[in-house]
């Protein structure tokens, strides 16, 4: 019997090693797998490479992981925000490597990894400093930049509901990076609000098929400490 349900976030991340590349879903707080990030901090893995759209806000979640100095490098599109002070301090101190990627290129590099694409040409960033040193090509009447996939060892994402095969549905704009990160990582760990019986999810409405998912943890939303 296939059963991807795992009892706790700690169990779901027990085999995550130092130096791993970890995708973390979410756009701001929407879709951020807060309890999985807490478990990653408690788990203690170091020298991580993190892939996320942002670089943490205020003092919890990804910001807390940065503050704990577990991250060597971050790939993201929009690190600088009014409340990204942990990132800002580490970056300015030279303790954190940043690879800044335009948001659509970030999404497509993640998608390409999950889809087995070796590389792709995108018009985004051509002629800008974010394309410096990259291979370019003129195709038809447009100029393109060659970009490579981003693979990950783990993806930590948040969905709304899952069955024991790992089929997922999301909630509103919290879907954001979840489906593409799920496909791009060797081990995708999902926190969900609710687990359901097989057959309870409408097959026409499943967003992420279970083949992309390894582990599912039901998380009862804790009253998170006010930042």
């Amino acid at each position, binding site marked *: 019997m296939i059963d991807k349900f795992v009892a706790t976030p700690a169990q779901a991340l027990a085999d995550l090693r130092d130096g791993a590349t970890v995708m973390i879903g979410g*756009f*701001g*707080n*929407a*879709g951020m797998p807060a309890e999985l990030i807490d478990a990653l901090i408690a788990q203690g893995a170091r020298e991580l490479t993190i892939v996320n*759209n942002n670089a943490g806000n205020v003092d919890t979640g990804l910001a807390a992981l940065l503050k704990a100095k577990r991250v060597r490098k971050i790939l993201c*599109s*929009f*690190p*600088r*925000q009014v409340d990204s002070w942990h*990132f*800002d301090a580490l*970056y*300015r101190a030279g303790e954190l490597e*940043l690879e*800044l*990627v*335009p*948001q*659509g*290129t*970030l*999404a*497509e590099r*993640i*998608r390409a990894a999950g889809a087995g694409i070796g590389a792709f040409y*995108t*018009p*985004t*960033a*051509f*002629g*800008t*400093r*974010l394309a410096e040193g990259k291979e370019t090509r003129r195709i038809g009447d447009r100029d393109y930049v060659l970009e490579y996939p981003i693979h990950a060892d783990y993806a930590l994402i948040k969905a709304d509901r899952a069955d024991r095969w790992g089929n997922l549905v*999301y*909630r*509103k*704009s*919290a*879907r*954001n*990076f*979840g*489906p*593409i990160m799920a496909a791009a990582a060797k081990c995708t760990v999902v926190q969900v609000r609710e687990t359901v019986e097989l057959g309870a999810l409408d097959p026409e409405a499943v*967003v992420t098929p279970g083949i992309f998912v390894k582990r599912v943890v039901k998380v009862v939303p804790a009253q998170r400490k006010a930042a």
Partner: protein
Amino acid sequence: MKKLDRKQMAARVARDIPEGAYVNLGIGLPTLVADYLPKGREIILHSENGILGIGPKPPAGEEDEDLINAGKEPVTLLTGGCYFHHADSFAMIRGRHLDFAILGAFQVSTAGDLANWHTGAADAIPAVGGAMDLAVGAKKVLVMMEHLTKKGESKIVERCTYPLTGARCVDRIYTDLAVIDVKPDGLHVVETVEGLSFEELQRLTGVPLKRMLTAA
């Protein structure tokens, strides 16, 4: 002359968005355009984080942390709106499906180069978001910005001194002084605010402008 304030600029841009358009509004000044879209026109707003059909701000107390726009502000969804993942969202942008992207800018060049993501300061922490995708992807890129910097220098320039977001991508510039089309043969002034002559606009702008030939 009667300079437009931010709300008047938003209203001016909104007037030009036609029925049925799919539109992405950048963070900041462009977001104001949503408040002035003509009633009775069905216009569908797109958000990079995976929404088509953004509705108005929710009433206080009814915010949903799973329903935010690209500026991470709470929004609502119109009846008929939908959600999708990030790669699909940027396929809409990059794949030329959006009719308009309305973006803020630090500078626009006479060739239509756009600079809006980085001041170029050596110690600045860079952040780009979806700006570069919108600049190359939307069918029409409309820029909204003040015409002059706080020091009185023209933000329309021969060559951008700030790092580029996209090359030759801007179609039209809306400022607090004028509406200007970017065309292969240069900048065409579509209109100026009340009390501002073409000659005075030309003096303030510093790069060559053309008078738009009006039909009739």
